[in-house]
Structures are given as structure tokens and as C-alpha cells.
């Protein structure tokens, strides 16, 4: 088993772990972290694929990961800001499933 495959498998593992955590936890911070872990999983898969050729690594996945990180940072910032707002209004950083009238 090559290093690339190992990285890819770890990436898939992280992704699944993230999906599980996203579903199971109610606290918004945990949900946001779960999404970040999922993102890291995808990035690891992408980078592992960059190393799949023997001679020179493929630069395109690295470029994709950099773009992906930029997107992930801004999404996380927006999510955290929303979480703080919700916390300020309801006193709890959780989604409110009760009647939203």
C-alpha cells in the first residue's frame, strides 16, 4: 500500500467522521467543526491524488486545495458569526426546532 492510498483512506475516514458528527451533535460549534473536518478530509484525498504519479507531483490538486481552504475559512467565519448572533438572541448556540413564528 502506497503512502498516497494511505492518505486517501485517512481522508475518507475524516470525511465520514465529519458527516457523523454533523448529524449527531446539537451544539452549533461542534457542527461547524464537523464541517471543517469533512473539508480537511476532502483536501487530504485531493493532495493524496496529487502524489499518485511517481515522478513529479501534479500541481492542480494543490491549487484546488488552496482555493478550497479560502472557501472553508470564509464559510467558517460566516457560520461562527451566525452562531454568535443566535447565541446572543436565544442564549443557546443550538438550532431551535420549536415553532418559528
Amino acid at each position, binding site marked *: 500500500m502506497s503512502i498516497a492510498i494511505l492518505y486517501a483512506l485517512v481522508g475518507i475516514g475524516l470525511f465520514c467522521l465529519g458527516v457523523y458528527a454533523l448529524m449527531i451533535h446539537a451544539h452549533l460549534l461542534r457542527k461547524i467543526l464537523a464541517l471543517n473536518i*469533512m473539508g480537511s478530509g476532502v483536501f487530504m484525498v*485531493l493532495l493524496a491524488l496529487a502524489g499518485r504519479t511517481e515522478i513529479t507531483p501534479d500541481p492542480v490538486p494543490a491549487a484546488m486545495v488552496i482555493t478550497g481552504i479560502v472557501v472553508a475559512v470564509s464559510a467558517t467565519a460566516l457560520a461562527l458569526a451566525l452562531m454568535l448572533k443566535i447565541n446572543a438572541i436565544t442564549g443557546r448556540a443550538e438550532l431551535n426546532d420549536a415553532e*418559528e413564528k
Partner: protein
Amino acid sequence: MGDFLLTIPWAVVLILLPLVGAIACFLWPKKVNQLGLITLGGVFLSVVGLGAWLLENGVYHHAVGGWNAPLGIQLYADGLSLVMLGITALVGVAVSVYATAYFDRSQSERFWPLWLFLLTALNALFLSADIFNLYVTLELLGLSAVALVALGGGKAALNGAMRYLLASLLGSLLFLFGVALLYHTYGSLDLAMLSEQVESTPTVWMALGLMSAGLLLKTALFPLHFWLPPAHASAFSPISALLSALVVKASFYLLLRLWLEIFWPISGSVAGLFGVLGVMAILWGSLQALRQTRVKMLVAYSTVAQIGYLFLAFPLAMGAGVTAWNAVIYLAISHALAKAAMFMAAGNLLRFGGHDRIADLDQLAQRLPLTIAAFALAGVSFIGLPPSGGFIGKWLLLEAALMQGRWDLAVVMVLGGILAAMYIFKVLGYAFTEASKPSKVKTVPVRMEWAALLLASGAILLGFLAPLILPLLAIGTPFDAFSGNEEIMP
């Protein structure tokens, strides 16, 4: 002069102009309304320019920065992109005019930049031909849409926005995973290159599953629609109109594109599943809409139902090909016009009476005739009565279903129309009668009433425009790969 106009790279203008407009709105917050309207006008003209170019020369290609695929990013426009860009510009202009009257000073300073970013993302999405670039536009779209929902500021709006954000990010990450797998298999991100190479392998199947799941979540197909009603109903009305009319369509467009270009040859059996989910969406969404007590929630659930129709095309396209795809595009654009009009009408009701409880609508047919007319005309398109655009779409879809003896789908389409009639008349009925407790009323700016009415009339007018729009859709023959009864690989 005419030749000069044809040399302008309209596709690039379509992406850059709203982006520049959005930044300008940050720089000169005092002038946002004017800046926004000018930008929208420019975008509208650019779509016309691009349309003229396409009619003259066929499919449009642009290699950004002079770099060609596989390394560079390609912009691509055919008839399908053009029609989606056109409907975006049309709804955009109407919502923008509406918004100038709807928002107060400080709200519009926040609304305009976000809306123009959203428009940038929409235009870029419709013009991209590169699956990673599509991921980026999808994220831009999601983030600006979530921020727009959150503008509402209240508890319901923030909750709706958060739920929307989580669903949207999950959807994009699933999509990105699919992109990674496709890149791994074929070493290319370009749609056209991928479509030449794709084969039925486990990796491609996994990519198909992940990308479709992500996009279904973003398109809010039953049972993944849970985030849509709270987000769309709690946002400000012009924003609900944008989200329901355009944002949902964008992820649907992307799904359609991927299927047409990449997944079609290998995925005949999955199309049946889409059909089943579509049927369930129509029935569930319509029944939920009937149960609602507030106008905006009713309209939001109606979106869930109408999305179902779009997915009926997937199983039908195997036998009926172009007819089914034309039907679905027609349904999508007439839904965009009618749903935007309906949310604006709902916004007018809210402004007028200070509430949108259906049972307490007080003689609005006499007091807000233009708004109620807009609501009714939009409803005509949802029910599928002639001569509306919704009628043409449903007619083509019924034709496709009957051609293949799919009576089950035909029955669901008719039933969906009846249920739509029931929930539309539920609102209209209360609008004609006197409420038990009259509420204080505020005046509604004329611009808001006319914007809603004109868009709703547009949805009706679409019914007459089929001979103009169907040939436009055929530019670049996006649906050609499987027109007629071509043999489909299992």
C-alpha cells in the same frame, strides 16, 4: 456599430459587472439604489448582447486569461446557459426595483452588495464549464444566499440561515468530493473533456452519487427539503423571491448539466429514483402547502412541490429526449417568474396588514387589487392553466409521459395541478372576504405592486413565447446527446 457590439466578451462582462457593482456599493453606501439599478440594467443588456452573439455564431467559448483547458478555466455558453442567464436578469431587475421601495436606508446598504455578489455567483455558475470552478461558484452562491437570509435579523431568520448554511456546506463538500474523484480518474476538470472519457466504473459511480446527493440537498428535493421552508419563509420578501426563483434553480441547472454532459450514458437506472423522489416532492410539498396558515410558508412549500416537477424529466428523458428537457426548462423558468412574483405579492400583503396569516387577510382583493392579481396570475402558472408558461411546461411533460405510457407520472402531474389550485384558492378565498378582526393597514408603494404584477404577467406571457424560446434552447444542442430513442447503455 453592430460589429463592434459583437466583439465585446459579454460573458466576462456578465461576471465582472455585478462584482464591480457589489464592491462599488461598499464604497458609496449612500448611492446603493442607483448603483444597483445601473448594474442590473448593464447585466440585462449584457445578456441581450450575449444572446445576439449566440444567435449569430453558435456556442460561446472563452479561455480566461488566454489559458486553455485542461490547465485554464473555460467559460462556456449555449442556449441552456443563455436562457438561465436571461431569466436571472429578468427576475433580478424586477426584484431590484421592488427592493428600492421595500428596504429602508440601512437595510438597503446591506442588501445591495450581497445581492450583487449573489448575481455574480449565479452568472458565473451558468457560464462555467469546469467542475472545480462550478464548486467555487456554488460556494459563493451559498454564502451570499445565507447572508441574505440572515439580514432578517430575527430569531426565525437566524435559525433559518444557520440551517441553510449547514445544509449548503454539506452539499458543497459532497460535490467537492465528487470533483476530487473525477479528477483522480480522468485528470481533467473540463466538462467537455470529461464527457468524452467517462465510463461506468465504481469510482465514477461514487462521484455520481456524491455530486448528485450534494446538489439534491442544495436543490431541496424531497426528502432533503427540510432547510428550505424556514429559510425562504423567514427572509425578507424580495430575498425569498431571489432564493426561491433563482438560487434553487442554479443547483438544479448544475445537476442537469452534469447529467447531460457526464453521467447520462451510465446512469439510466438512477433516473428512475429521481422520478420517484419528484413524485413524492409534488405530493408532500402540495399537501404541506395546504396545511400552512401563513402565506409565506405556503409559498415556500409550494416551491418544494414545484421542484418535484423538474425531476420528473429524468426518467422521461430516456424515451422522450428533447421534449422532456424542453419541458423541464420551461417549467423552471416559468416557476422562476411566477414564484418571484408570488413572494413579492406576499411581501406586499405583509407590508399592508403587518402580518401574513391567511385567515386574517381582510378584503385585500378590493384594497390591494394589483397584488392579489399578481398572486392569482402566478397561481395560474403553478396550476398549469393555459395560456401560462407553466401550462406549456406541463403540457410538454405530459406529452413525454404519455408517449411512453407513463400513466402514473401523468396522474401525479394532474393531481399536483389540482392541489396547487386548492392552496392558491385557499389564499384567494380569504382575500375576498372580510376578516373577523380588522388590522391596522399601511400603504404599499406602487412600485412594489407593479413589480409583482409585471413578473406574474411575464409568467403568463411565457406561454405565448414558446416559439421564440424553444429555438434559443437548441443553440449548441445541449440535449442532443440523446435526442429521440437512442439506445441507452445500462
